[in-house]
């Protein structure tokens, strides 16, 4: 037996040091992970509504049980590795270990024991599962959520007449204290709607409508991210929920139901409007106008709006009515407002970020990866500097 040389002297202390270091590192990580940091807009462990709280109440005990098992098993690994190390006098076959082949009672114990623990936890699992399912039935108001490459659309039927009265994008506005039933759909590939502060995620699958109930306890803005890989710009497909107190929400609805304000004759914005209806309106709708810029006399979205003249894969581009009532654009990626603006009220208050809008208009695919050649996303329209300025002026009037 010519065994390879083993470094015996330094091994134990190194083992110990590194093991302690590792355990410390892991404890630190778990500690840091569990604290609700304000700078973590997508934190899954910081529930802001009863559904998310329900999940939290399930996760925490499960984490605790898992944590105990973790400490016990890893502790046992370390203990066994250190305690039963082969020592100098064990070489040459002295003091060989007792040959244990097994112990049925012990093994049944650690087969049945974990099964029992899991069975107990399963009760809570099932209860939470059905509670969340039942919450959908409690929903009194519904919002249709439509995913497409690579942004989210939200549709409201506030008067329950079967027609959508408000269509907005990227930012979903909802009242606090009310359970909202989402009807999640997709226009192209599978996406997943996820606002971690309010509930778990639910996929948007083409050809299907999936329900999800969310409730926000407090007013605020809650961030989200598409969590099913949906192609090129999946990473830039975000959304947010703005929860408003019920009165504020009603005010927001009233504002959304108002038609656009006609820009003053001769202003840059008026010129921008002309540019809009000659270049943008073939995809983007502004309520109250048809695709050529003529007023339709209606203040709600036109179901039959012949928007996409080019065959968009999703058949849809964001409705830009009241664009500036939102926080961000292009999959909730880029700010519509300068830093310092107040964004969580009924309407944003601050200075529009004309620079970002202009940057987008100059070359959208440079800011966000898109496939306009494959009819997914916005192409570079090769607008002149003047047109960009005019359009920016027009778009910032859409409050």
């Amino acid at each position: 037996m010519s065994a390879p040389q083993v470094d015996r002297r330094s091994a134990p202390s190194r083992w110990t040091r590194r093991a302690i270091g590792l355990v410390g590192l892991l404890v630190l990580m778990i500690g840091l992970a569990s604290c609700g940091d304000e700078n973590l807009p997508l934190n899954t462990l910081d529930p802001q509504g009863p559904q998310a709280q329900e999940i939290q109440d399930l996760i925490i005990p499960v984490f605790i049980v898992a944590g105990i098992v973790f400490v016990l098993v890893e502790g046992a690994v370390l203990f066994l590795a250190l305690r039963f190390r082969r020592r100098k006098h064990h070489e040459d076959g002295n003091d060989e270990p007792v040959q244990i082949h097994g112990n049925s009672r012990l093994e049944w114990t650690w087969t049945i024991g974990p099964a029992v623990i899991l069975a107990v936890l399963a009760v809570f699992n099932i209860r939470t599962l059905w509670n969340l399912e039942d919450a959908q039935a409690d929903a009194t108001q519904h919002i249709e959520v439509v995913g497409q490459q690579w942004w989210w659309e939200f549709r409201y039927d506030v008067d329950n007449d079967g027609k959508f009265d408000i269509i907005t994008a990227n930012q979903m506005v909802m009242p606090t204290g009310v359970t909202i039933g989402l009807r999640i759909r997709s226009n192209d590939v599978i996406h997943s709607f996820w606002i971690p502060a309010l509930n778990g995620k639910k996929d948007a699958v083409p050809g299907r409508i999936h329900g999800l109930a969310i409730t926000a306890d407090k007013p605020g803005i809650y961030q989200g991210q598409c969590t099913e890989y949906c192609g090129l710009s999946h990473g830039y497909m975000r959304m947010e929920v703005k929860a408003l107190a019920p009165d504020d929400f009603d005010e927001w609805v009233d504002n959304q139901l108002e038609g656009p304000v006609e820009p003053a004759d001769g202003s840059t914005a008026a010129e921008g409007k002309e540019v809009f209806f000659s270049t943008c309106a073939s995809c983007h709708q502004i309520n109250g106008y048809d695709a050529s810029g003529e007023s339709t006399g209606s203040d709600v979205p036109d179901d039959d709006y012949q928007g996409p003249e080019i065959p968009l894969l999703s058949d849809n581009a964001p409705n830009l009515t009241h664009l500036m009532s939102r926080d961000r654009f292009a999959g909730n990626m880029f700010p519509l407002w300068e830093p310092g603006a107040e964004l969580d009220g009924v309407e944003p208050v601050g200075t529009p970020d004309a620079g970002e809008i202009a940057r987008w208009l100059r070359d959208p695919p440079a800011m966000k990866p898109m496939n306009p050649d494959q009819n997914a996303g916005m192409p570079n329209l090769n607008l002149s500097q003047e047109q960009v300025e005019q359009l920016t002026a027009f778009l910032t009037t859409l409050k």
Partner: protein
Amino acid sequence: MALTARTPLELESGTSAPTSRPLGVFARPTATTGWKSWFFSVDHKKIGIMYGVGSFFFFLVGGVEALMIRAQLARPDGKLLSADLYNQVFTMHGVTMVFLVIMPMAAAFANYLLPLQIGARDVAFPRLNAFSFWAWLAGALYFNTSWFLGGGANGGWFNYAPNSGVLFSPGHGIDFYTTGLLITGIASTVSAVNLIVTVINMRAPGMTWFKMPVFTWMTTIVQFLLLFSLPVITVALFMLTFDRRFGSNFFNAALGGDPLLWQHLFWIFGHPEVYILILPAFGIASEVIPVFSRKPIFGYPFMVFSGIAIAFMGFGVWAHHMFASGIGPMSVMAFSLSTMFIAVPTGVKILNWLATMYGGRLWLTTAMLFAIGMVAMFTIGGLSGVTHAFAPADTQQTDTYYIVAHFHYVIFGGSVMGFFAGFYYWWPKVFGYSLRERAGKRNFWTIFVGFNLTFGPMHILGLQGMSRRIFTYSDNQGFNTWNLVASIGAFIIGIGTLMFLVNVWRSYREHKRNPVDPGPDPWDARSLEWMVQSPVPEHNFDEVPTVTEFDEYWHRKYGHDENGRLVRIADTEDVAQKGDATGVHLPSPSYWPLVLALGLPFIGYGVIYHLGWAVLGTILVLVGVYGWILEPSTDPDAGHHEVHDAHPAGDGSGAAAELESAAGEHETTAEAAEAERSTETEETPVG
């Protein structure tokens, strides 16, 4: 039949010349050195080594892809890779690591060790075995040629429809994905059939099911999982190919298709696949830990039955990948419960390994460190797995980095660490020299630390809400610190991997300069492969051992005193075989597995580009099949079906091994027909 089954043999490796040697195009290759001895080899050991080298190469490829991902994500708003390239890189990383690294690396260990551990001279169908390897390699290289033909697949390894449809992914990357995986799937199916037959039929006398080493058991279970899960993804891959190339709409919701069908078919395969990836490493740990604890595996029956239980339950948990897909609350509940309880047999394994260590004399070699590290790290992956078996919790965790952390703790912490344990443990057996231990330990700690730095923080990132598969993140999302840590860790893993290669190189040079024969049994080990010389002679066993105990070889060396303590009863030199047998007939090398395998990628190119290529591929396949059938057997007894030699009396004292007869025709027709079916049934509709 058992006799011929155990040793399908034709050409002799000893001194006596073959009695007949048909010439012409169908003569069998005879090279024993140089590249020909590898390319045309049907020796399970050479094929095992080639599998190992091939998968390690792709481990480096997939590792470079991983480093590209981590470099991109090291800082917010990373610009190193474009979104498009990032999507290709993470897809190729996943597919490469699963199908071109872990599965074939498991096949490497299985090929080399399984026949040795059951006391066989080769696998049941040596030429099919060679075909499996070449088909896998052809598929793997074919799949990677997509990099040079317009870009790799970009739909994620799970490749969900309809994003994988031609409408949303018009490039050819996903065509390479579907056809490439069909080719490697053929390789795996053939290999599964081969190894299952080997285990069922070719065990040494006395090697009953419950005397088989745990590694053999786990590998066998994996082959059954492959056998029953691969056809399901084959169906899905065909339908996607038809959608993309021939205009059907299986997964197109707009025209009546159901995107969730892909998910179901993919995960009915995909979840057993997870156990396909991890069980071989469980097997390796179950070999390494007892040897270096100097104790038998604790609770052998529990180890075996928990493996079987995992395999059965593994087919009943697939929809836990779909808790957010909208499959309905009843399904969610059922799959949530089944998923929770699959943790039970897995937990049994972990506790049994610990019980094996308890009271032992742990020899902390590099192999043992990797095995213990595997147990410790897999435990973390298992526990995080239980936390998202809870469906409501999973809706917060799925598709976040928490999942990425989870399955890397399982697949890297489990499978890869297990494989490294296997490298260090079996290296002297396979190559005849040991890897340097001191460097090995540095290697272990580097990988261990790098691994935990990389994937530990991903738990936190996931719980902080970082989604998977996003090509970058923003500065204000709070992901900066841990992503940087993870990226640093990834490069440490990279260094650890290079340290392994350096260790191999330096150990080899040291061995060349100053050869130290590790002997047949450097670790004082337990299973039959340690009973033969290192490296293993071509004929494996001078004489096939008759097995009377589990851990047969150990029991030939050790007995017990009245206190149950070990007593040495025989020296290694006395019980190990000398490897000097002559006149053992071994299967002849063959050109045709390689020819047959070469046809497959051409059929793939034909599906993607021009059917002319498929015609060429089909011709190659047919030439391969008929060459295979018509190839002469160089076995002097070909055509005879009688066993003519006397059964060696007693324990067969002489070094002369049993001269056994395999009717050459057995192998030629049935085996080739088998290959034909396996390949043609899968390929013809495409071509």
